[in-house]
């Protein structure tokens, strides 16, 4: 029983880990990735994407830039990996948008509330369906209108002198506005939040049927068309948005295993400086460093420790420009006979990665199918590069040819390590199972020896050898079934509560076994694979029967006369 439990728990955790690995690492890359390690990237990516999207098996292709940088969010610069993405398109090649808190997870959590009014639910679903963006358009700040009688906005309505910075309790707002409306008592403003916040007018109007109130809102709406009174968060900031991994802004797990999230309202709209290095000039000097201010618009939680703690995401174009990878005018001196001509041309824009999504008809988990497409993609890439270099002559830098990788290639090292570890654990627990078999064998052997005379008696009244052996085998079978059943129950309980148990252990003893930095994930996988159960349970039952087999055969082969004489 314990053996079954252990094997099931270990296999579930390791298997779950493997699956999390596979799905999470895919969270950031497409099914296929055109990649170069060169930080200067490769040119002609637009032409490549155009060619790639003509292929019959390719759904979409999106460029991205990966580089290194320094991020400063108020307490000194720290290293970070910077990824420039075209965020609106990113969702077409991977599940990155699903990791965003403000634009996805938060809304999804709100939708889980079954008591949500239908209209609000539909609105949230519309919000969810929109592509993610780097904009902070959700922050709409409206001056407080005069409230009609009977409607109160927390402390403001109580007519008291509200201390500066106090925020009205969201719970006191009418339900349809909860979580979407905040009252800034210091400036006497209403702040609407959420992606649909620009639709604030009907939202506010729904609060009351009072004609006075409706009039006040109408006048507010009129004023909102002129600049000054109404502030839209994203537009007024004039800053580009940045998405950060949760760990980068200090959202971590505490000892008890719970998330410690700083106040979201403080974190979003916070300004951070990001320094990246323009290396196109050839060397690195102080001038190549470029610092730009961004405003945090969202955080991303992919579940992979190194992504969540190291990566920040910025708009593709901005990063491209900052790194000097966009097309820049250059002047070339051409000696034409005796005169020297200066020709002004543009360098081709570069990127470091192209993420490719294959069509649905292809199974992306089947590596052999991807490998076949990989070969085609590589040919297309090479052809485009050669063609364009010939067309543009010397202007094209002699960039390295990028390589094409399947998503499995990108995570191969990790996955093979985990697979080996899983195999090793299975072998280890297999050996423990053999010990269990030996134990059952010993116990049954003792029983047979002790019951020798009884076996003789039932044989003398006519029991067959097979019948006698069957008694012991049946006994072993029952033990096996009960043990495997109990093992299944216990392991189900353990696996499904493993994170809670781990948190409890952390609280009580201050000792954490699952180190997210080592295991890459911040929570222990807690799913059980039916396939694993199907092959482990019969083996557990069978090994119990195997343990009983030899004693049973011995019992069956006993000579009745000899066993009756047994003392």
């Amino acid at each position, binding site marked *: 029983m314990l053996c079954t439990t252990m094997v099931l728990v270990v296999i579930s955790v390791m298997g779950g880990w493997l699956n999390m690995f596979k799905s999470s690492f895919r969270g950031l890359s497409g099914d296929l990735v055109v990649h170069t390690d060169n930080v200067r990237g490769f040119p002609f990516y637009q032409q490549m994407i155009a060619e790639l999207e003509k292929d019959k098996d390719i759904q979409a292709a999106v460029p991205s830039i990966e580089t290194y940088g320094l991020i400063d969010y108020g307490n000194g610069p720290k290293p970070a990996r910077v990824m420039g993405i075209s965020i609106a398109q990113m969702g077409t090649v991977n599940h990155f948008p699903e990791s965003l808190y403000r634009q996805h997870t938060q809304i999804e959590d709100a939708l889980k509330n079954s008591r949500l009014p239908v209209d609000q639910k539909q609105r949230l679903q519309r919000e969810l369906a929109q592509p993610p963006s780097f904009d902070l358009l959700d922050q709409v700040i409206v001056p407080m209108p005069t409230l009609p009688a009977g409607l109160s906005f927390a402390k403001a309505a109580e007519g008291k002198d509200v201390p500066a910075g106090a925020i009205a309790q969201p719970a006191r707002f009418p339900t349809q506005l909860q979580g979407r409306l905040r009252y800034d008592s210091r400036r006497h403003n209403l702040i609407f939040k959420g992606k649909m916040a620009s639709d604030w007018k009907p939202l506010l109007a729904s609060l009351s049927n009072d004609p006075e109130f409706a009039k006040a809102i109408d006048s507010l709406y009129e004023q909102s068309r002129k600049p000054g009174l109404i502030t839209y968060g994203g537009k007024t900031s004039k800053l580009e948005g940045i998405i950060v991994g949760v760990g980068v802004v200090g959202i971590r797990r505490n000892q008890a295993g719970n998330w410690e999230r700083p106040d979201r309202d403080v974190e979003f709209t916070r300004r951070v400086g990001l320094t990246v290095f323009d290396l196109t000039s050839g060397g690195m000097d102080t001038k190549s460093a470029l610092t730009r201010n961004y405003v945090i618009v969202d955080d991303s939680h992919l579940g992979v420790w190194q992504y969540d703690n190291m990566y920040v995401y910025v708009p593709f174009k901005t990063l491209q420009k900052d790194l000097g990878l966009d097309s820049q005018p250059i002047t070339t001196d051409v000696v034409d006979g005796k005169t020297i001509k200066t020709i002004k041309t543009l360098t081709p824009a570069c990127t470091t990665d192209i993420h490719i999504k294959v069509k649905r008809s292809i199974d992306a988990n089947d590596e052999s199918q991807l490998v076949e497409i990989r070969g085609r993609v590589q040919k297309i890439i090479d052809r485009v590069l050669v063609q364009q270099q010939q067309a543009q002559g010397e202007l094209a830098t002699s960039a390295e040819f990028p390589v094409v990788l399947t998503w499995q290639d990108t995570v191969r090292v990790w996955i093979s390590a985990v697979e080996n570890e*899983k*195999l090793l654990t*299975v*072998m280890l627990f*297999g050996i423990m199972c*053999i010990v269990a*078999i030996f134990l059952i064998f010993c116990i049954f052997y003792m029983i047979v020896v002790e019951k020798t*005379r*009884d076996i*003789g*008696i*039932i*044989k*003398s*009244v*006519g*029991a*067959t*050898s*097979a*019948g006698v*052996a069957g008694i012991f085998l049946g006994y072993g079978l029952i033990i096996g079934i009960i043990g495997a059943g109990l093992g299944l129950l216990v392991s189900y309980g353990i696996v499904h509560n493993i994170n809670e148990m781990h948190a409890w252990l952390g609280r009580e003893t201050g000792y954490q076994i699952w180190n997210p930095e080592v295991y890459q994930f911040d929570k222990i996988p807690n799913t059980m694979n039916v396939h694993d159960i199907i092959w482990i349970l019969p*083996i557990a039952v069978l090994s119990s029967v*195997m343990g009983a*087999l*030899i004693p049973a*055969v*011995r019992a*069956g*082969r*006993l*000579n*009745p*006369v000899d066993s*009756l004489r047994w003392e």
Partner: protein
Amino acid sequence: MSQTASRPVNILQQPECAVILRAQGINKTYRMGDQSLDILKHVDLALRAGEFLAIEGRSGSGKSTLLHIMGGLDSCDSGRLEFQGNPYVARPPGLLMATPLRGMLAMPKRFRMRACALIGVVIMLALVLAHPSRAWIYPGILTVVFLGNVLGERGERSLVAFTVAWIAGGMYWIFERLTGHGWIGPVVVTGLVVAFLLYLTIAAYLDERPLCRLRSTEFGFVFQFYHLLPELSVLENTLMAAMVENSWLGYRRQKSFLTAKARKILLELGLDERIYHKPNQLSGGERQRVAIARALMNEPKVLFADEPTGNLDYETGRQIMAVLEKLHREKGQTIVMVTHDRTLAGQADRTLVLRNGKLERPGDP
């Protein structure tokens, strides 16, 4: 053939006496290392239906052995046994000693081993050709070990080897499965081996079944040391004979009928007050009566009693003898009793003396 042995046969040639059990030329030798003891030397015996036969003999004369051989509990070295004209024989019991293998056992050992190894190699080669894989190491070794040893007379010990090979092979199989090697081969070979094992078991069962039926339905045994199951009550001990005789389902179906029958038998034996007691709460005489009740449960044609009074005091012994005599007299129960007591033997219809491995009529020198 000795004269003494032929005499009972002559008696039984009288037409009104139907012979129910006939033993001819029974030999039995006990071997202890290089010493051997011929305990039975060409014993002939015929038992008439409805007869109370006593076999008298000193301790160690082989009278119990003769009884066991006649009752199908023990094997004899040579001779012929017939019950109601049908021959039966007790073989050394074995789960794997099915009839088809006995033929192989008759071969010289060297030849047998070679034949087995050859069969194993042929199977292995065939499978390697069908599906090349490194996984053949395991089933190959397994097959050769299995065929080479399990078929031999030391079936039990080779079963240990077989099990170890099975476990090792299973581990290897899991390893190969996880590392992405072929799996059809090991599964096929394991399947074949298991199927062969099942075949042997079933064949052995079918082989043994007629004798077991004979023991449970036609013969009843009463032993000197009662041999009751200590965990079961008197009633359950009596019912046990019926439990063994019937299938589980069949027993469940007629449980009430069988229980009533057992109660009736126990009542006749004067044990109706004791049916829920455990054997350790009974006196020796009562235990022996429970043993008789168990023997009578399946209405046997022949009741074998092996020193039924040997463990009892004189008075209790007489009571038991009275029970047996009553059975014989009122129901015409055929009884074969073995005893060393000449007085007890005198109460039987007919007495034979086993002396020096031969049956003689009493009074013969």
